Structure formats: C-alpha cells, structure tokens
C-alpha cells in the first residue's frame, strides 16, 4: 500500500512540471503586450517599462522560466496589480474558508449520498427508494446558485437558523454554502451507489455470504458496500476535482470570502498575477483530490495494488 502511494506521488512530478510551465506561459499567451495590459490603459511609457522590468518580461524566455520556477519553489508568486500585496498573502487569506467549504461539501456528498444510495438499493422499488431517487434527481437537476438562493430564503431569511452569507458566524456560515455546493455530487453519488449496490447484491459471493449464515445487514455493510464503492469512487473523484468551479458560484451567492470570490474580483480587475496563482492553486487541488481518490480506490480494490 505505502509502496503504491509513493509510486503515485513520484509519478506526479512530470505532471507538476507541465502544469507549472503552462501556467508560466499564461502571461505570455495574453494577446498583445502583457506589460502594457497590466500597467493599464492610461499608463505612460515609463510606467509600462517599469512593469516590464518588475515582471522580468525583458529577460530571455528561458531565464524568465528559471526565475519563475525559482520563485515558485520559494513560495513567491509575485505582487497583486490591484493592491500591490504579495499574491501569496492574498491566497493564504482565502485558502482556509474555501478548503473548509470544499471539504465539508465532500463530506456531505459522501455520507448522505452513500446513505441514500444504500437505502435505495436495499429497499429497491419501495418507498425509500422512490424518495431517495427523487431527491437525487432534484439534486442533479437544480443549479447550485438556485439551490443556494432557496436555502438562504428558507433557512436564513424565514427561519433565521443560519446567516445569509459571509463567514463571520463560525461553523454556521459553512452549513448552507457547503450543502449547496455538495448537493449535485451528493445526488450523483446516491444514484451511482444505488445502481452499483443493486448490481453487487446479485453477485455470487453474496450468495456465499448468505450460505455462511450472515445476516442481511452484515452482507450489505460487510461485503457488498466495499465492492460497490469502487465504481462510485471513480466517478465521484472526478467530480470533486470540479468542486472549485462550483465554489466560484456558491461563494458569490453567499458572499463568502474564499478563493472563488477572489478569482472573480481578479478577473474583473485583470489582476494577472493573482489569476495565475489561483489557476496554479486550483490545478494543485485538482491533482491532490485525484491522488486521494486513487489511493482510496486502491484501498477498495486490491487488484489495483498488486498489478
């Protein structure tokens, strides 16, 4: 198992190099003169030249890349054009809320999604199944900004249980946005778990389990569930990677001070160094989530570990 994990992490190195190169290229791919763009429309020639110098854009391409990578490894991501603050500080300020939000929605999605899926499979074609799958279809079809607005209206405005937005109310500020963010994946996990478990319960080793004298509960949780989660993890893992896209929308709806909001602000202001850093961060998170999913997958499926 450890061997497998280390192998996977080492395998990421080339990918990280490619990604960092592409992100480095980002500034060079902007049409026109990046220095002029960043300096702004009203900038004088000297100001443009100053920006060019500060970004090192006058240097040869290879040298630029090397110094970019050097800075990157030291945690230096440059300075925001808008505020002049170090990009690293801007990102660090916003990282925790967004990670908390994402993490919590993954928990929602997994726990509730699997629970609904198991109940639906066990009570196949009975009312818990119908109810579960109705919830799932709704969860998949409702856009998360709309779900967010409904949740705010219902739980914050009407019932006053949770704040309408921001992150000032501790854990309470996380409940509604994380739910809005995770609902779609939760619904998808519920459906996949259901169909996968229904399928697994038809397998011959399930009959073996019964022939041993196991109860229905032991069969489902002791034997069938782990087998059923293998395909679920594959699909869910990909979706988790895309959660950040969702967080941009949800953070906006809930005025939540996370990376998603920062990204929107930076794009509006053409704050390229910040955008660049955000893309880097999102990519890293995507890779990390995929790595975790792969590890989970290999934990569930011993065949992967040994091949």
């Amino acid at each position, binding site marked *: 198992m450890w061997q497998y994990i280390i192998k996977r992490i080492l395998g990421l190195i080339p990918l990280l190099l490619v990604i960092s190169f592409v992100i480095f290229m980002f500034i060079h791919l902007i049409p026109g003169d990046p220095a002029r763009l960043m300096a702004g429309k009203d900038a004088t020639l000297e100001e443009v030249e100053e920006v060019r110098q500060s970004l090192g854009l006058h240097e040869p391409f290879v040298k630029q890349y090397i110094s970019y990578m050097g800075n990157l490894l030291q945690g230096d991501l440059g300075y925001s054009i808008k505020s002049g603050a170090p990009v690293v500080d801007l990102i660090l300020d916003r990282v925790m809320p967004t990670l908390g939000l994402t993490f919590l929605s993954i928990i929602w999605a997994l726990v509730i999604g699997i629970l609904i899926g198991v109940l639906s499979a066990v009570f196949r074609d009975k009312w818990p199944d119908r109810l579960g799958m109705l919830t799932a279809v709704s969860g998949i079809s409702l856009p998360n900004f709309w779900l967010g607005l409904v949740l705010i209206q219902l739980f914050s405005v009407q019932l006053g249980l949770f704040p309408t937005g921001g992150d000032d109310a501790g854990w309470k500020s996380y409940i509604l946005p994380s739910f809005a963010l995770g609902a779609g994946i939760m619904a998808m996990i519920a459906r996949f778990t259901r169909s996968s478990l229904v399928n697994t319960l038809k397998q011959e*080793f399930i009959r073996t389990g*019964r*022939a041993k*004298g196991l109860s229905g509960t032991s069969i489902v949780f002791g*034997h069938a569930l782990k087998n059923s989660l293998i395909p679920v993890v594959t699909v869910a893992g990909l979706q988790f990677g895309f959660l950040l896209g969702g967080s941009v929308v949800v953070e906006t709806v809930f005025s939540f001070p996370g990376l998603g909001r920062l990204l929107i602000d930076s794009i509006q202001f053409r704050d390229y160094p910040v955008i660049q850093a955000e893309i880097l961060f999102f990519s890293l998170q995507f890779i990390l989530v995929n790595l975790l999913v792969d590890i989970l997958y290999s934990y*569930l499926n011993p*065949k992967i570990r040994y091949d």
Partner: protein
Amino acid sequence: MGSLLQVNNLKTGFHTEDGMQTVITGIDFEVNHGEIVGLVGESGSGKSVTSLSIMQLLHDTPGEIIDGEIIYKGEDLLKLSEKKMRQYRGNELSMIFQEPMTSLNPVMKIGKQIIETISLHLNMSGQKAKQHAVSMLESVGIPRAKDIMNEYPHQLSGGMRQRVMIAMQISCNPSLLIADEPTTALDVTIQAQILDLLKDIQEKTNMGILMITHDLGVVAEICDRVIVMYAGRIVEQATVKEIFNNPKHPYTKGLIDSIPKIGAGLDELYSIPGAVPSPKNMPKGCKFAPRCEHVMDICNLEEPALAMENGRSSRCWLTQEQSQQEGVVGHGQ
C-alpha cells in the same frame, strides 16, 4: 447411517410476468449421515433451485418455496425463523458453489472470509479463530496456509480458490454439505483432486454430501447413490452401481452415453438431442417424450409416476409396463 436430510414433496416456483411458475414439482429424496448422494441432470433441470430451496437461499431471486417439508435431523427447516435458519447455514448445513472465481469476495482477504464464518458460529476469539482458519486451510491441502490468509482471491488459481471455499464452508464442521457443481469450472486434473478431497473429508468427518453435477462421471467417482432429475422432477433414483449396470430411464441412459470417454475424439462425444423444456412449454405427458427414442402413445398422453421397485425408482412407462409384465409372468410361475 440414518436419515440426515429428508426432502418431502418439495415444490418451488418463480414469480414471473405470467404468474407463478413451478420449477420443482414436488420431489422426495433423502441424504443419510455419511452418505454422498449425487443429484444429476442437464443444465436447467432444477438442481440448483433444489439446493437453494434446502438452504432457503432464494431471497435474492424471485423464487419461493410453495410446499413441502425439509426435515433436517428430525426438524422441518421450513418452519424455522430466518434467524434460526441463519444459525444453521454454514454451521449445520453448508454449501459450496460452481464458480470459485466469483463465489469469494474479491476485496476481502481470504483469512478474513474464513474467520468470519468461524466467529459467526463457533465460540472462538481472534487468535484462536485465526489458528482454526489456518488449520482448515492446511486440512484442504493448501500449501503456505499462513501466507494465503493474507492474500486475495484473485491471487490464487481456480483449484486453490475452490479449496479455500471448501475450507471455509466446512470450518464449522457441518453435518451436511451441498456442493453445487463444485468441479465444473475446473480442468480435469484439478477436478479429480477436488473430488478426492471431498471424499476424504467425508470419510474423516462422516458428513453427508449432496453432490450436484451434470456429469455422471463425477457421480461414478465419489457417490453412493444417485438421483436423476429432469424438468424439475426426479426421474430415477438408485445406487451408483445399479445406475451404471442397469439404467432404467432412457434419460439416464442418455446421460451415461454422454460421459466423455478417455481417448475418444471430440466428434465422438454423444449428447442427448434436443433440450430441457422450459417451464412455459412443458410437454403434457412424460416430460422427456420429445427427446426419447422409445416414446410410445401413452407417453404423450399421461405422465408416468415415480414407481418404486426393489429400493430403486424410475419414472417411465417402459419400466412400469415391463414390471407389470414381469409381475404377470412371475405370478404364472
């Protein structure tokens, strides 16, 4: 000896779109202590449904036992609660299946699968249960039993997997083992080894075995008595010796002729023409009539009863007429 399992008038059916379809039509047979009984018939005859009915493992199918008694050690299993039945499965009566590949949980270590059975039925704790599991693996001839405990089914060969399955299912020392085509998925040499193993276990433990197979060759190898099934009915029942020396039912003769002969080419392989009728299209009279070379007028009109004679039985107008004639002749002498 003495009766271990007695199946009386067992009727099992499946819920289908066209309503309840009876697949096992009221069969009677018994398995004695220490006896290996073969249950033989082509695919679709109802052998598996019979075994699943005895174990009451029809949960996950649309199947249901309609009528009958399954008397195990004097107690009707069909009257037991599901909870009580669970305590019997894997403990008193156990079962092994055809596909050793798919019959073990692919994501659970072999040791854990065996220990699970042991701790379910025997009062054994962690270390003791583990030792018992290792000794079970050793007793079915698995080398490196300790290592195998930590391996997964896909790391073993088919024959080894079937040994694991056997070790697991006899680990609580059941009195009855139902083996549903345990060697069908294995190649010939491995088949013989597994059969030897089962015979060996039976001799050591005096357990009764119901050996389900479509291959009379397997029956010849290890069984004491044979029940031949066709279309959800018993058509002949006799000792192995009687069956091979003097098969009464044309279907049994066909099965005997279908045993592959050593040294014979593939083109010499005989098989009974036609196929087992589906429950939907059952012939009116004798269910074997469309495939029988001895078919007579009465065969198409009326189904013969399973007639007992000298401790063996057969369901065919041919033998029943013969015995009547013989009876007449005997009377005259």
